[in-house]
């Protein structure tokens, strides 16, 4: 069993959990895979910017995020399920976003 089959199987498993009964085509699997790699690599590169703050913190968080990403491997199907079009989830994220922005601006500017 090569890696591609493992990934295909994992995506199928996640689909099964969500009750999404569309057939998994080659195209869908490869695009999910691309999205997965893109999101993990972007996250890792972005975390490297923590070096401006503290080098040890940067190394620690890069390793931590790498391990977490490997463990939670199919991130993308879950992420896609979170970003659906229902009003309930959208307004939930809007309010969470408002909370995060207000807190960050208070904390970031008073202690930065």
């Amino acid at each position: 069993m090569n890696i591609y089959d493992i990934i295909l199987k994992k995506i199928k498993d996640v689909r099964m959990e969500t009750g999404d009964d569309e057939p998994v085509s080659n195209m869908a699997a490869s695009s999910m895979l691309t999205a997965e790699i893109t999101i993990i690599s972007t996250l890792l590169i972005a975390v490297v910017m923590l070096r401006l703050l503290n080098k040890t913190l940067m190394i620690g968080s890069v390793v931590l995020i790498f391990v977490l990403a490997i463990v939670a491997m199919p991130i993308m199907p879950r992420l896609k399920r979170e970003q659906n079009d229902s009003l309930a989830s959208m307004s939930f994220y809007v309010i969470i976003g408002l909370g995060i922005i207000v807190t960050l601006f208070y904390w970031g500017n008073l202690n930065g």
Partner: protein
Amino acid sequence: MNYLIPLMVVIPITCALFLNLLHERTRTVKAISIIVALALPTVPLIANYGVQYFGGYPPLAQNPTIAVGLPTLITGTALNIFHPAITYVFGSAQKLMIVILGFIALFAIYISLYEVKKASGVYAYLMLMGTASIIAMLLSDDIFNLYVFFEIAALAQVGIVLVSKVDYNYETALKYMILGSIASPLLLIGIALLLGVTGNVNITDIVYSIQHGLVNPQSPVLLMACSLIIFGWLYGTGLPPFHTIKSAMYSKALPTGAALLQAFSVFSFVAIGIIILRIFSYLPFAHIFIIGISLVAMTLGITMAITQTDFKRLIAYLAVGELGYIGIGLGLGTALGITAGLFQAVNEAVITAFLFIGFGTIMYKTKETDMRKLGGMLVETPKSALLVLLAGLAMAGVPPFNAFQSKLMLVQASLNSGLPEIAIIMVLLSIVTFMTFMRAFHTIYLRPKPADLEIKNEKIPNITLVAMVAFLVVCLVFGLFPQIATNFLQGMAMSIA
């Protein structure tokens, strides 16, 4: 007195209201729309740079006849230079952006007039109203005036989606309005806090008050105002957490409407983003936050685009992701970065409109948007296929097109600011953008035609092809001679940085 500056807003609004009255008279509607649409890019092109004070009240310092005999309590203090009237500033950067917006609106209106049998006055009304309010947002130096036009633009966007007759457009419009009715009162409160601290709604005066110590810049009320205004900015432009609803809005509009809607988002992004930078650039965290939210927008937008099966939604997510590039340029805060960001904004508005209209020809021929049911369209529409391919290359940033120049400038700016990681992420995501586009292009045009796909035997209107060629010419001109655009934008970037 430079009367052309207010006329840029007044002409489209007046004609829009007039068009709405002419409901059944198709030919009159057509004639008026054609003339007004032509006026949209030409009026800013011939207008001179200047400042317009509504009601004719310039600051006292520039108006010595009134200032005579006033006590020194007024003439000796900052009140002397404060702006009593709503002020519109028309500089070189505004000129380029309004011309480009007018250009996109011109072709959107023309295509909408010729693609349907019966021209609808209501659709033209909504498009003109939205364009006028975005022009006013770009011009306005008054933060409450900006809020009013922001709300009008939101209503016009909802209207453009409501008239589209695409499935589930009412639901999406209602969702957008509900989220908007949460976000825009919060933006209003942000403006109210700014007004409460500085006693002013004119942005130049607010900046003066903050920089000259008339108010305490570290006051927590100002921090709160900054966070609420940024929240309203996220809503108006469709950055996360609003990216799902904004991309749904694009995909539920007609292709012409979608092309115009994303131009609205891009230019309101620029208009409000510049205001945030002007007022709050003394907060170091504001820059970090803008860069962070732009990175999130780019990543989420582009990765979500890959997984879509509906091609309109795919381009919609790509459009949201491309907004992140502008945000990076603004967030870097250097003169080069801001110039690159503004240049990218101009380019992106053109290219995404190009893509929406180009893929719109598929909808015109087949009435189908699901990529799994499409294929083999190259034989049917070879000319528009070539143009769409060029648009996709332009969006991904392939040289000789314009986005290559602006993305190159962005990479240089981020390297100069000592953040090579951002440059790497931008290049990586450009490659993924290209891959996403090529996947859509392959499935729609190159793959063999599915048996059950019905293709209508209607010719694509010539005006659509003309519009696409015109967009291509703009892309090529800005790509080969980027100085044309950057010379216009540099002045504003220098004044902010």
